[in-house]
């Protein structure tokens, strides 16, 4: 049974994880998309503002996407997302981190331009095993509504 718009009432939606992030993954993503020394080189990273090897913020976003997919997007009648209102990187992603994802529904409303769909705005928070908040995102997704029950049907 696919999740539809009505399955996303405002409030706490769910917690997902843990997801272990390895040093190899951090280095591989950084080499491909974000080859800054603070994400690739232990010595340079220790001298950086983040004081040690850290994952790319875009890697953390991409892992968050995968955790959302595994957690609920993969079984949601989602039509995609128009964007991200706000995203904050609050603490560095470190090799060996076990990430937990918390999702809250901030707002759910029926789309005016496409009434068979709704816009679900959620707040996603990624924490490490120590409970430190690494990343916080507010983003809408477009979700299909459940078809109207047929005329004359009870309820």
């Amino acid at each position, binding site marked *: 049974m696919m999740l539809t718009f009505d399955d996303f009432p405002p409030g706490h939606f769910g917690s997902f994880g843990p997801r272990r992030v390895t040093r190899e993954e951090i280095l591989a993503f950084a080499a491909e998309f*974000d080859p800054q020394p603070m994400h690739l080189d232990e010595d340079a990273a220790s001298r950086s*503002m983040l004081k040690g090897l850290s994952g790319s913020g*875009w890697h953390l976003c991409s892992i968050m996407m*995968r955790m959302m*997919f595994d957690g609920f997007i*993969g079984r949601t009648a*989602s039509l*995609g997302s128009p*964007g991200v*209102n706000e995203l904050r990187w609050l603490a560095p992603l470190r090799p060996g981190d076990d990430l937990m994802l918390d999702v809250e529904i901030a707002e759910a409303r029926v789309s005016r331009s496409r009434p068979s769909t709704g816009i679900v705005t959620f707040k996603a928070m990624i924490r490490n095993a120590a409970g430190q908040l690494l990343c916080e995102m507010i983003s809408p997704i477009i979700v299909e509504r459940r078809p109207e029950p047929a005329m004359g049907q009870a309820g």
Partner: protein
Amino acid sequence: MRFFEDIEIGQRRELGSFTFTAELIRKFAAQFDPQRFHLDEEEGRKSLFGGLAASGWHVGSACMKLMVADGQRQAREAAARGEKVAIWGPSPGFRELRWIKPVLANDILHFASEVETKRLSEKRPEWGIVQARNTGTNQRGELAFSVLATAFVPRRNAG
């Protein structure tokens, strides 16, 4: 890379282009965003996107890739002139990220970055905070991607 003092509001850098081949789209999606319209041509055609579409996080990551490459080019140029090279700090985040048009297989996005605001960091006096609008425009001239990104930029005489 430039120092905080060298950065002016309205400065624009052309970052270069990235081609989203079907192979790259599927590879990124399989790892990070395996929604059906990012993995399968036919599912993409049936979706709002109208074709195999790149994950939005793939588009953002490609923009980052070109930003870093541009920074490294500038650093090499500064070093060649015998100038001190600025090493940029991390980013505290971004706002107003918009996936405006789908990025479909074989689309070529041209990325650019334009400075919108700059201010000194209150907590870290050796750093400034710069906001830039990073955009991706496809080969048809349509704006497909836009984000207002923030970064810590070192001050020239921070020691």
